[in-house]
């Protein structure tokens, strides 16, 4: 470690003037970033992490009041004019934004946009030189056929590829500091794994110091050297990554770690929710900002010595090197587990737990469900030019009191499946039976209404799911009115519902926008429960929520399932949540179920190569696990369901397929594999050769590829954005990278 940090931030304060008063968004941040090191900044939304990074980049409007000191290699950046700052931006300090969709201009080619970055900071660079450097950068981030793809427009790239382009642009001028603001939040897990690899590689090449901003403790576990946990605009804990995870000293950090479900843990314990919401930074903070939510303070214990004074960040002895925390009794907390500190709700016992699955009544049965969308072309007369097979023969059943989850990358058809079931349209291809009544029975009027009563839905985005013009009362009364309840009964029921989901009944006159995200999701759940359904469809129920709130909602869902005997059909991309909450799981790929079974079976003993890759791609909030495990990194993106490959749809990305001898490959590409059962267990998969060798790219050494001959992609240009991490590593080997 060099003695001089590349970036040194001292006592950074940022405040904004708003209509409602002064918001003190960042309240004193100190850190040093050294070359080649990664600092992870973790915090919930509104904790000031993004505001701090924007301050470093000098991207705040002039009305923002920024004080303190930001020094880049000893030069003060604060107080520089916008023009002077431009000298540094993109050259010395570069940024990777969260949303690759909106960070690239749609009307310019990728080549133009990378070239622009180079041109601005290298006056007089020749056209040829710019082009060569662009190609080199594209190759570095693993975009195949870089010279030609420079002429592509952003919309011709998939999300993961766009993020790679963003990384290429950020490292174009060899910056010494790279700020990544939630770089993988908008991406699928398998793509996230690819992008994290690319970022590590970019760091190796440029030797930059990286500031990684994220809300996901898992993402930074493998990457960061140091981690700073922020709360209410202030760091509450700074330590080396492994110490944060093993010896957290601030109650907030401990709570965060307890609130995250782990994909590698099978035991059913309730998650640890942190009650309450972060303080409003409009008001001045008196005393510890975490105090209103602090479990120690709540249980009457003495955490902060001085109630009026905000505890300062101080060195904690005996908890690893350079471990700072802002808690007065941090030393005592070092060995505390989240369960010791926070009140953990008991694991709810369902009456169905004791009944074997076969004996429980079936709530939902889906048989060979298909949903094909015609792809039409032509202005006046529409011709059918193709078919998008969004769902292509899906079968499963859900028993009473059970949580069944469907997982897969975006575009695999999981949400379409869910919506098809909710639509309950009699023209459905295949069969859906809810409580024994089939879609093809042609239910009408009151019979249909009765059936609809049995299945309700909770949506992903709690804001969009509630009519902003409805008061909470109206929201909750709507399904009841629709079922023909009497007004008096409705009032009674609404108040009962508010209590059931843990909200104050007298809030029914409020509008949804007066609630926090977690509360809104509770309202959404209350609406689904209003008419006492048998089955509740959950579409990514917690993905829009902050970690600490997420735990509360998951616990609520589990409690309701046990108390009310509900069955859940959950769609989620977060496998950790799925593992925690569900009994059975189906993994979908390109409209088909590739593996289905009991959640512990599927997660602990995955058989299908796609499931294996998916599971290995999830970052675990534990640096030790992160360092030791091997990742199966999938190549490229999900092919579009429009041109799904013949035979096994996964063959284009399959790490097993690649090592198979040709005659076996033919088997894979000829016909879709049927479901085979693993032993006598509740575990089925669709793969011909699950036991063959797998091509593995290890996370620690991406160069080490186990026996893969990589000439050209054997499957041609199946997807617009067919790229390959393996190709990227071999290409990087031969490409001359900035000698």
């Amino acid at each position, binding site marked *: 470690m060099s003695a001089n940090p590349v970036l040194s931030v001292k006592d950074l304060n940022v405040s904004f003037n708003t209509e*409602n008063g002064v918001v003190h968004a960042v309240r004193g941040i100190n850190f040093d970033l050294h070359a080649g090191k990664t600092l992870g900044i973790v915090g919930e939304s509104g904790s000031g992490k993004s505001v701090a990074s924007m301050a470093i980049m000098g991207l705040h409007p002039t009305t923002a009041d920024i004080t303190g000191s930001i020094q880049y290699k000893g030069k003060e950046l604060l107080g520089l004019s916008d023009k002077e700052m431009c000298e540094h931006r993109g050259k010395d300090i570069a940024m990777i934004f969260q949303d690759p969709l909106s960070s690239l201009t749609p009307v310019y080619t990728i080549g133009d946009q990378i070239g622009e970055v180079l041109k601005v900071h290298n006056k007089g660079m020749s056209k040829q030189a710019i082009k060569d450097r662009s190609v080199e950068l594209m190759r570095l981030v693993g975009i195949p056929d870089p010279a030609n793809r420079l002429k592509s427009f952003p919309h011709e790239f998939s999300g993961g590829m766009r993020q790679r382009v963003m990384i290429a642009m950020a490292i174009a001028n060899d910056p010494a500091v790279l700020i990544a603001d939630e770089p993988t939040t908008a991406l699928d897990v398998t793509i996230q794994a690819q992008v994290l690899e690319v970022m590590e590689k970019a760091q190796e090449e440029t030797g930059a110091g990286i500031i990684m901003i994220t809300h996901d403790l898992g993402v930074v576990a493998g990457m960061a050297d140091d981690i700073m946990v922020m709360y209410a605009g202030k760091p509450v804990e700074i330590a080396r990554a492994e110490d944060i995870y093993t010896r957290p000293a601030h109650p907030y950090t401990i709570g965060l770690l307890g609130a995250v479900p782990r994909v590698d843990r099978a035991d059913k314990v309730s998650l640890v929710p942190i009650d309450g919401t972060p303080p409003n930074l409009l008001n001045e903070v008196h005393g510890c900002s975490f105090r209103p939510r602090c479990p120690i303070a709540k249980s009457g214990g003495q955490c902060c010595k001085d109630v009026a004074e905000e505890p300062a960040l101080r060195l904690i002895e005996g908890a690893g090197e350079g471990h700072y925390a802002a808690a007065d009794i941090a030393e005592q907390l070092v060995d505390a587990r989240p369960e010791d500190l926070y009140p953990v709700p008991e694991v709810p016992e369902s009456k169905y737990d004791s009944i074997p699955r076969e004996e429980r009544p079936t709530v939902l049965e889906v048989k060979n469900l298909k949903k094909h969308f015609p792809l039409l072309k032509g202005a006046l007369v529409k011709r059918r030019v193709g078919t998008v097979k969004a769902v292509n023969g899906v079968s499963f059943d859900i028993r009473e009191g059970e949580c069944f989850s469907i997982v897969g990358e975006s575009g695999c058809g999981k949400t379409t499946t869910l*919506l098809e079931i909710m639509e309950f349209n009699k023209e459905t291809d295949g069969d859906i039976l809810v409580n024994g009544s089939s879609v093809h029975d042609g239910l009408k009027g009151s019979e249909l209404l009765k059936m*609809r009563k049995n299945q309700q839905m909770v949506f992903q985005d709690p804001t969009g799911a*509630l*009519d*902003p013009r409805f008061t909470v009362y109206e929201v909750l009364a*709507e399904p009841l009115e629709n079922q023909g309840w009497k007004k008096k009964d409705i009032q009674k029921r609404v108040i009962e519902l508010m209590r059931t989901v843990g909200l104050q009944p007298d809030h029914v006159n409020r*509008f949804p926008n007066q609630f926090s995200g977690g509360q809104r999701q509770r309202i959404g759940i209350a*609406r689904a429960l209003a*008419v006492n359904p048998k089955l509740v469809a959950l579409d990514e129920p917690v993905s829009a929520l902050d970690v600490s709130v997420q735990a509360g909602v998951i616990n609520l869902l589990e409690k309701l399932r046990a108390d009310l005997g509900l069955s859940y059909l959950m769609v989620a991309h977060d496998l950790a949540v799925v593992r925690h909450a569900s009994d059975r799981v189906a993994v979908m790929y390109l409209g088909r179920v590739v593996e289905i079974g009991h959640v512990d079976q599927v997660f602990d003993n995955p058989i299908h190569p796609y499931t294996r890759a998916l599971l290995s791609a999830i970052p675990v909030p534990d640096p030790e696990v992160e360092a030791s495990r091997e990742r199966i990194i999938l190549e490229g993106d999900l092919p579009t369901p429009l041109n799904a490959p013949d035979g096994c749809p996964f063959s284009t990305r399959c790490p097993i397929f690649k090592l198979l001898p040709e005659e076996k490959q033919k088997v894979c590409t000829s016909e879709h594999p049927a479901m085979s059962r693993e032993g006598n267990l509740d575990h089925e998969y669709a793969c011909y050769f699950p036991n063959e060798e797998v091509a593995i790219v290890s996370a620690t050494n991406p160069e080490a590829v186990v026996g893969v001959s990589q000439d050209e992609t054997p499957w041609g240009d199946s997807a617009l954005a067919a790229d390959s991490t393996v190709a990227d590593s071999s290409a990087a080997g031969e490409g001359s990278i900035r000698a």
Partner: protein
Amino acid sequence: MTAAVPPTDNLPRESQDVPELKVDDTPDFKVINKSTIITRRFFRNKAAAFGLIVFILVGLFGLFGGLLAQWDTNTIDPFYMATGPSAAHWFGTTSAGTDLYAQAVEGVRTSMAIGLIVGGLSVIISAVYGCIMAYFGGKLDNVMLFFLETLMMAPQLLVIAIVINGAGGQKIREVLPGWVILTIVLLIFSWMYDARVIRSMAMSLIQRDYVKAARYMGVSPFKIVWRHLVPNIGSLLVLNFTRGITLAILSEVAYTFVGIGVKYPNYSLGSLIAQASSQINTLPWMFWIPMILFFLLVGPLSLMNDGLRDAFDPTSLSVGKAKKDKKEKAK
């Protein structure tokens, strides 16, 4: 809030449900009707409340001003020909010697009726029409859109001129007074542009989850359109409504001015302004009095615009004011 709400009916509390909830500190409360909430929010906007009051006063003048009139609209007073406002003729007389006050009362009434009917009905038609197009889509959308665009392309001025003056409508003109015909024709041509904008807005709203949620509950399509789509384009509708009134009054004035609107023996603000146009300099009161009434009719509408939007829009800041008010009261 508690002060304004009457004591509640006794809501049954089921203690076995969630026993840990503290019932004591939550005061008894009542589910407040949404219209009450909206009314309260509206009256928090002072300018809007003022506008509403002025509008109502002008309306009352139109409705009941006739009770105070000593003359009727068409009787000639030979002693007061073309004289200014006086005790006998409050608004003065016309060049023909008829009483301007009586005419103004009728003019305000006619113009206001045309405005309210056209503004109100065209908003409802455009909202329902646009939302139905968006909700059902497909063939129905195509047919309805075709009809809408056909109407848009029709020569509005010509149609109105023909209906009011032309030969074919003799029967209709005998049965209906001129202003009613004008209202109907204005109504026919007033809603299409709004309907098209509403269609596109509703199309994006339909993608929202809460519409899906209602659909999966089995709520009937028309109910969804009425309960979810129409209120959510409420801000636009309110603007359309107040602007529609203004526009209708303006077009009535304009059509009457060029001679194809309200005709003698009926009066509207437009016909009053028209008859004064040749004597602005010699008989100024004949022009300015209907003009001022016209402003008093149209001006408050734009003041109300803002307040109505705030009242219907849950994201508006008038809630914040409510909280402040409460705090101040507490002090």
